């Protein structure tokens, strides 16, 4: 009976639950789904992380390669993110060139990296003007159930914490790079940006961590990326219903709490992997 009602009138079905201030799966409106993170699972990558946010599963793999630094910034390296939403993760994605959703997510991750200065690009430079590291961050969604941006940001952060770069010296005589795989060092992660996504229903109600169906029914979405000092790296609101300043303020406070939760999880994970 409930399943029938849900198919015919999905919005009404959701409204019944929202009136009681909860999700159909029993979550509170301000509660996130169970988050789990697993790092270092891909042995062929220099750094990797798998994040599960409820059913949404995202894996991030980072490969480090050599490249010549850009001519207008010879002391900087590159960080190249790419978000891939393959047909595996959801029925709505077909095979072919990257869809708009994937491109928007890639641009969002690139903006977060740029704005939050998560790593100094100068740290990636080996020899100014000649050689630098380029970090290819491939973020692949394995299961799409809403809130992809939060999961991607978290996966990227966890994977970057996991990356170990070998020491590289430039041989003076030959001019070639010599890589010492025995000596590896972690990246210097300066800030920890954490994304919190909200969905707006009926122009008034704000819910945290929308699932796939809720995103589809929502009249607007909002993603706030905050770092530990409470500074905002990104306020991504791609259209949708209007929000007043007061509602934005509520979102900020929720984002601060979420940041604490995620930071705690990250610290535990890092502690578990460091003594090696």
């Amino acid at each position, binding site marked *: 009976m409930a399943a029938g009602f849900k198919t015919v009138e999905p919005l009404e079905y959701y409204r019944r639950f929202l009136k009681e201030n909860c999700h159909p799966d029993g979550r509170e409106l301000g509660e996130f789904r169970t988050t789990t993170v697993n790092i270092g699972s891909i042995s062929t990558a220099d750094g990797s992380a798998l994040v599960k946010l409820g059913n949404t599963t995202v894996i991030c793999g980072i490969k480090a390669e050599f490249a010549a630094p850009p001519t207008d910034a010879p002391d900087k390296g590159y960080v190249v993110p790419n978000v891939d939403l393959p047909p595996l993760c959801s029925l709505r994605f077909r095979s072919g060139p990257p869809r*708009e959703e994937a491109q928007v997510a890639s641009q969002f991750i690139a903006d977060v990296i740029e*704005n939050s200065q998560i790593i100094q690009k100068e740290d990636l430079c080996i020899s100014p003007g000649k050689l630098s590291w380029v970090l290819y961050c491939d973020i692949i969604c394995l299961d799409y159930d809403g809130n992809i941006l939060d999961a991607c940001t978290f996966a990227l952060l966890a994977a970057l914490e996991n990356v170990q770069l070998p020491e590289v010296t430039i041989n003076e005589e030959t001019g070639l790079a010599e890589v010492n795989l025995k000596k590896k060092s972690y990246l210097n992660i300066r800030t920890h940006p954490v994304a919190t996504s909200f969905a707006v229903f009926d122009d008034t109600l704000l819910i945290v961590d929308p699932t796939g169906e809720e995103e589809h029914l929502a009249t*607007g979405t909002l993603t706030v990326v905050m770092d530990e000092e409470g500074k*905002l790296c990104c306020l991504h609101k791609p259209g*949708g219903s209007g929000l007043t300043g007061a509602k934005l303020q509520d979102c*900020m406070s929720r984002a601060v709490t979420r940041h604490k939760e995620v930071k705690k999880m990250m610290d535990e994970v890092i502690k578990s992997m460091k003594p090696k």
Partner: protein
Amino acid sequence: VEGAMQADAKIRTESATESGPRGPSCSLRHFACEQNLLSRPDGSASFLQGDTSVLAGVYGPAEVKVSKEIFNKATLEVILRPKIGLPGVAEKSRERLIRNTCEAVVLGTLHPRTSITVVLQVVSDAGSLLACCLNAACMALVDAGVPMRALFCGVTCALNADGTLVLDPTAKQEKEARAVLTLALDSVERKLLMSTTKGLYSDAELQQCLAAAQAASQHVFRFYRESLQRRYSKS
């Protein structure tokens, strides 16, 4: 007769705000708008903000491909062409922002199973590009007669390292700023429709920018009104 009517409609309106050098208090650049300048699209507008200029054309409500049609709403599509080069991922991201902003105001349910296409061409970029695109899109939608429940406008705020706010920054000011926020506000309740930001800033600064943007949007909406009044008072 049609040619004469079009010539009458092509009135270049100047904004009421000052166009002199920017003072320390937040003032917008000189802006100008021209409507109905293209013959093929159902509606078109050219919006100028200082030296930034964007040309917008709207086709619709028109026929839609069966794969893209929505049974109870109009399908909105936005195409943004940069001045040089091919459109890339950044353009796709901006198209999504503009499209969702338009979807929030356009009354799509009045034209189900149709498509409304907004094509934007960047003519010159001297800072505050996304805001100019939004304004041009709004004027073009009005020119095409697409039913909307509110008008919208784009305002860009730049925050400097010392915390000062500059509205409608030039390209140079954007580069030197610590953070650049582009906000879209609606005309009825001045609510925040769209926001995209670059750089780091605090919560309090966000509220400050929002308040400044709401004040600035008054000017822009007044300019829209004057522009349209002048256009329709003659014909």
